[in-house]
């Protein structure tokens, strides 16, 4: 039958993201409520609603290279209040994942990525986060050796920092989780 | 329709209500939305008018699938006709299965007078779906048996 409707064969960035994540940013009508309530806006280069706009107009590059996606604290204020039910915070996760994969991470996100990597590295090795090791690893990665040095001794005295962590017994099980989820979408 | 060509062209009979789906299909027309020509719509006052025998008759006359479509729940022109229709279908489905008709060949939908696009997409979709199911033959067997 000849009645195939001719939609444009190429999916737009927004359509592609909608298909992959179930979050359709075309619903966003740019009301700015997400931006208004976002605690991290002062640290961002684009506001959350501008990120939605970038995706709407198909500027994949700018969205993935933005500092915003890394400075989002995942506090979910935006998703909770969006009148169009756009899951903005969840969408930020999806953009971060793609930014990492496409190697387009914003330079300003260096410390944040260092933290995430140290954090996940700790879990991968021990199954649990041991804060001293995690902080040491982070500081090396982030080349940020001197901040907070005053807090550490106090915390130590108060018994908040333990020299030895308690790793999980079945460390292989955790390592396997990392392996098996590594390639996943 | 030429059922002998390489690709099987299903015959689909639709029973639609005058107020919602027929008007929705009209809107698809006025909007020039294209869809496959396999569908034949029969206009009734309301989906509540549809008797199970109409569907059996449709299969008997060679339909490969039947579509029933009317107003959205709560929106019936006659206030509750489509509600009664829906209640009857649950019973009717069992009857179909009993008669050896694959329930996938009986399709239900709601298309309002404003949903021309929905109608055209629906026809696209079900035509493809029925094409996959292939020609309906089992009923003939039963009738002859």
């Amino acid at each position: 039958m000849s009645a195939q409707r001719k939609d444009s064969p190429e999916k737009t960035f927004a359509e592609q993201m909608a298909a992959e994540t179930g979050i359709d940013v075309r619903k966003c009508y740019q009301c700015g409520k997400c931006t208004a309530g976002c605690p991290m806006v002062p640290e961002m280069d684009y506001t959350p609603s501008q990120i939605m706009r970038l995706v709407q107009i198909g500027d994949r590059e700018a969205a993935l290279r933005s500092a915003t996606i890394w400075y989002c604290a995942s506090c979910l204020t935006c998703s909770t209040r969006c009148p169009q039910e756009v899951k903005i915070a969840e969408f930020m996760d999806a953009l971060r994942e793609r930014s990492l994969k496409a190697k387009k991470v914003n330079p300003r996100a260096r410390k944040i990525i260092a933290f995430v990597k140290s954090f996940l590295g700790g879990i991968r090795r021990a199954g649990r986060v041991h804060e001293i090791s995690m902080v040491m690893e982070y500081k090396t990665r982030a080349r940020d050796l001197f901040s907070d040095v005053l807090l550490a001794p106090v915390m130590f005295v108060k018994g908040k920092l333990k020299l030895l962590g308690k790793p999980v017994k079945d460390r292989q099980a955790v390592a396997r989780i990392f392996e098996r989820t590594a390639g996943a979408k | 329709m030429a059922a002998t060509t390489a690709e099987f062209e299903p015959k689909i009979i639709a029973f639609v209500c005058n107020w919602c789906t027929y008007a929705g299909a009209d809107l698809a027309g006025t909007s020039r939305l294209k869809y496959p020509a396999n569908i034949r719509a029969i206009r009734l006052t309301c989906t509540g008018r549809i008797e199970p025998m109409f569907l059996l008759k449709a299969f008997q006359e060679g339909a490969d699938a039947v579509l029933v479509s009317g107003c959205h729940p709560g929106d019936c022109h006659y206030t509750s006709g489509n509600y009664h229709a829906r209640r009857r279908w649950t019973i009717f489905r069992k009857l179909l299965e009993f008669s050896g008709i694959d329930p996938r060949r009986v399709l239900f939908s709601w298309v309002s007078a404003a949903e021309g696009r929905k109608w055209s997409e629906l026809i696209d979709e079900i035509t493809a779906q029925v094409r996959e199911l292939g020609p309906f033959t089992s009923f003939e067997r039963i009738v002859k048996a």
Partner: protein
Amino acid sequence: MARIGVFVCWCGENIGRTVDCPKVAAEAAEFPGVVHSVDYKYMCSDPGQGLVKEAIREKKLTGVVVAACSPRMHESTFRRACAEAGLNPFLCEMANIREHCSWVHEDRGEATAKAVQLVRVMVEKVKRNEALFPIKVPVTKRALVIGGGIAGIQAALDIANGGKKVVLVEKEPSIGGHMAQLSETFPTLDCSQCILTPRMVEAATHPNITLHTYAEVESVSGFIGNFDVKIRLKARSVDIKKCTGCGLCAQKCPQKKIPSEFDEGLGMRTAIYTPFAQAVPNKPVIDRAHCTKFLNGKCGICQKICPVGAVDYTQEDTFIEEKVGAIVVATGYRLYDFRNGEKDYGIEGYGEYGYGQYKDVIDGLQFERLASASGPTGGEILRPSDGKPPEKVVFIKCVGSRDCAKGLSYCSKICCMYIAKHAMLYKHKVHHGTAYVFYMDIRAGGKSYDEFVRRAIEEDGAVYIRGRVSRIYKRGGKLVVVGADTLLGGTGGGRVEIEADLVVLATAMRPQYGIEALAQKLSISYDEYGFLSEAHPKLRPVETNTAGIFLAGACQGAKDIPEAVGQASGAAAKVLGLFSGDELEREPIVAHVNQSQCVGCFYCEQVCPYHAIEREEKRDKAGNLIARVAKVNAGLCQGCGACVATCRSNSIDLDGFSAEQVFSQIGGLK
């Protein structure tokens, strides 16, 4: 023997381009029973219709099939033509080869083949059509208007001035509706009460209008021209005939701290009260839920004080019955309940705006009362918490509207305008204050409307900020409004925080509570939000799908006063049109019971939405009961066919859509 004529229309290019019309006509000529088959460029034109008429006369046709556009378009045209040529109009059917064929398919071969089939289907049907005759029903020339807001008042006055009787039913103690609460009205800023109260008085005193306030419609049965309505007159506890409206009772009533509905909770009223000074009728009612006498038997002051002995604690609800020929529904709207949320409707409220826990966050109607000369502050804008004039007022638009998350995706249409009005009124009264308006869009599509909004901005200096507010919280005594100016980017992303003294939310217009129940009583439909549905969004905007019932005002959708009044006059015109004859005609698509076959199960009765199935007793000559069987009241039956499909003994059929006709149509698809 059937003698059918087939007329295939090209519709200019519309059909002719995709469907081979001459071929369709040629193939149709071969169908059994067809004695005449032609094609023509514009069948609906005068010469086209002429072809049909001529053939009917010359070929003695017993049925006509016009293969052209949708029957929803031109069925009546061709049926009229047939009637003019002496053929019963119900022996004419249309095959839709345009909307359902030429416009939606591209392949000429396929489209032509389908058109041929569609014609055969209708030929098979029309062979089994029977002559039908429009049903004539008598008309009771009296109308019922439900709801006494501006729309109901206008409709009642127009009908009454047309010389017909009207029964106007209002559930509150006074008519007037929301318009009575407004201060001044856009776009001209005339005083609402000044223009409304004369109409209220006119409605109450009009010789053709019977007014029942504090009353509700209990039940409705019947059909166009012949409705039976039962009305509940709620117990007022005041004999309205004796009461002179002197107001002494209310002055002396010790219960003085009841939040006034009319003042939207910003003022107080007594237990025996008239809602407002200009109420019509200006006679009080006792609010039994708050009256000491009814709560614990004490008091009784009002009865003692009343000079004419009008107070009667023993009154009970009474019922009256009215026969009417038409009904106008004008029940208006209410505002989205931001104070309590709308959990009953599965709608989350605006917790982020404080759910009404902050006294100085109010809605539009509350602001109207603050700005109204008859309001609790005498028209001074004073904030509710401490009675001081607010220095900074923030208005937030689209609260509850255009918000899928809260389930109301529509635009309430009036708030853009009244917020501009509020900003103006505020600036006129508090000159040094600042009015901020958070908006997403400005929708001011009416005569002189946009100019009005521009005036608020350009002349009165209202600060419009494009963005939705995320949150309101309290800091010290102030309300901090956290929003964004989406027209600004840069560091901070245009985030705005305003320390406000008063916040006004433009909350969504919603249909009245209980509208669904009323709609069911009337057998009319409503949309997913509860607004009553018109018969056609463009061409029948004041009619409902139930003949004889019309809509006016905000019960059908958000609208302002000019629109409400316009629709009310439209509804009144429809009613007067209906009342212009003594009888009216209806399409004869009705069900019939074959009583000799009916087994009296009355399943049909259960499914009929119009209560059109009656029970008839069959008796033998000696008067002994033989059977109870069903009978269709043709006046009530609307022809849905639900009964037909339900009857297990195949004892009912539907004229125009009989089982035989449908079977033959299906057969035609071979």
